[in-house]
């Protein structure tokens, strides 16, 4: 298929962004009309069955189910449990499971755990529960439900055929009912059309696969023989098949060049991508002809391909905006933390300045008074004498000057007697 918008590729990214924004409501509408009845039928994600990407902190684990807390509640004795776990334990024995303090009524003696705890739980990264069906996404726990129920290609939804009551992966929705048997072209086993891809990828004994350890290629049925001779095996085989497959797919994706990555790889550090950068990526988006076979295969028409593209972008934008708000929040918190001490210092400096000013005024005042007194007496003496007696007057002022020069010493004596109050 010729890439339809190749000539426009040179355009600035701005129009593309507006186009996406303008299209956004439409994709939403389409999704609403096309996918909302099946969405309702998708079972909710069981947060307890999720596979966490890294080890969860011991403090975030429910002591009853030993899994990262789900809907945590805290008792009056400060112990945290999953709400469901505590309710179950409470029906058997109305005490706190940890310290056996009586808990007569759950509603009055427990409350939901602090926001801090729920935030930490929300940020735990989990693998998509459809991993066994090929979705390798790693996502924050708070977003996984949304991903599975609305975006994940591998989610099982009811078969679109009205008289068929089976389920099918979302990506194959548009292909109609695939629940008829076909025979696998490699092993001739009868497989449901809907399961054919998974069968060939994961199970079919006559398909070739690469060894996760040494990279050698062999037919799957020869797995055991290869394990014996594989140069990399030491003791037990580390890593399951699924992990090996995921790693291999990552390698494949890297081989196709970085520009194509965003199309089928969900960014793991969404906080780093600015909206402008995202828009740029959009304009570099691979077109059906350039995309990986895995990406193009399920889409029958170009419209569908673009629709799925829009959905991916939409989910990406959603993730980005949530990351942005998070960053914003952290930023303002940081700013606040930094300005607070500065403000404190400022007030301190201001008060010190005030005290200093007081001192200076006090000193100046004292000095002025002193001088005023001396000048007053000197002037009075000078005024009393006639101008002809300038010599005497000069002596007088000279005396005044002498006392004036004594001022500092007296002042310091004075200071010692009445130290300035701070």
């Amino acid at each position, binding site marked *: 298929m010729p890439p339809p918008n190749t000539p426009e590729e040179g355009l600035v990214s701005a129009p593309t962004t507006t186009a996406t924004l303008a299209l956004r409501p439409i994709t939403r509408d389409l999704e609403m009309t096309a996918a909302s009845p099946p969405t309702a039928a998708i079972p909710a994600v069981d947060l307890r*069955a999720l596979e966490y990407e890294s080890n969860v902190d011991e403090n975030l684990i429910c002591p*009853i*189910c*030993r*899994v990262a807390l789900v809907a945590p509640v805290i008792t009056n004795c400060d112990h945290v449990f999953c709400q469901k*776990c505590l309710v179950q334990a409470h029906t058997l*024995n109305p005490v706190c*499971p*940890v310290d056996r303090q009586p808990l007569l009524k759950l509603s009055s003696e427990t409350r939901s755990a602090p926001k801090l705890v729920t935030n930490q739980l929300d940020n735990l990264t989990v693998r998509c529960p459809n991993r066994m069906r090929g979705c390798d996404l790693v996502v924050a726990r708070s977003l996984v439900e949304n991903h599975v129920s609305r975006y994940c290609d591998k989610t099982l939804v009811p078969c679109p055929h009205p008289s068929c009551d089976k389920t099918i992966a979302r990506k194959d929705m548009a292909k109609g009912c695939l629940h008829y048997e076909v025979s696998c072209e490699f092993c001739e086993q009868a497989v449901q059309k809907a399961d054919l891809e998974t069968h060939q990828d994961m199970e079919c004994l006559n398909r070739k696969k690469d060894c996760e350890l040494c990279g050698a290629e062999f037919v799957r049925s020869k797995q055991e023989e290869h394990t014996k001779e594989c140069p990399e095996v030491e003791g037990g085989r580390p890593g399951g098949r699924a992990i090996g497959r995921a790693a291999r797919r990552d390698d494949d994706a890297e081989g196709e060049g970085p520009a194509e990555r965003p199309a089928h790889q969900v960014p793991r550090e969404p906080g780093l991508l600015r909206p402008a950068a995202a828009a740029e990526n959009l304009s570099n988006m691979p077109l059906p002809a350039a995309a990986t076979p895995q990406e193009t295969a399920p889409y029958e028409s170009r419209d569908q391909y673009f629709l799925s593209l829009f959905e991916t972008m939409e989910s990406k934008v959603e993730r980005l905006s949530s990351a942005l708000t998070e960053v914003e929040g952290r930023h303002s918190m940081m700013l606040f933390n930094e300005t607070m001490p500065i403000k404190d210092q400022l007030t301190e400096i201001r008060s010190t300045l005030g005290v200093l000013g007081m001192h200076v005024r006090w000193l100046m005042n004292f000095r002025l008074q002193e001088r005023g007194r001396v000048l007053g007496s000197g002037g009075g003496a000078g005024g009393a004498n006639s101008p002809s007696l300038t010599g005497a007057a000069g002596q007088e002022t000279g005396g005044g000057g002498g006392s004036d020069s004594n001022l500092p010493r007296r002042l310091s004596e004075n200071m010692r007697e009445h130290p300035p109050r701070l």
Partner: protein
Amino acid sequence: MSLGTKRLGKELTKIQKTLPPGITLVKADDLQEWLLDIQVLDQNPIYAGETYRLKFRFGKQYPIEPPEVVFTKQENRPIPMHPHIYSNGIICLDLLGSSGWSPVQNVESVCMSIQSMLTGNTKNHRPEGDADFVSTNKARPKDIEFYYHDNEV
């Protein structure tokens, strides 16, 4: 997967890696019944040099409800002498009854409690009425209403 199986799976992977000294995992082929061996490590003359076998049975409600824990008798695996342990292996321990159990407990903590219960014991005899109880009891250990009258041991 229910709460119980998920948690038991986690417990199993943990105790397959490490267990406190004197406790060893013997058999855990499924998530219904596990066998563990315990030894009393200090030089308590009643239990020195002996190994005892504990049998855990997990109901559907575990860990909300307590597991059933008894000693089982085999060659080289006697029932330990203790004023709270009947000669058929049933253990009278409040921790294992519905009222004393807490879902925070786990297999490892129960083993350690039993280990310390043996370690601290000085009385080399069976509970009162042991012969009667052993011959007449048909109830499951969990359903027996023990009367926790004796807190000395």
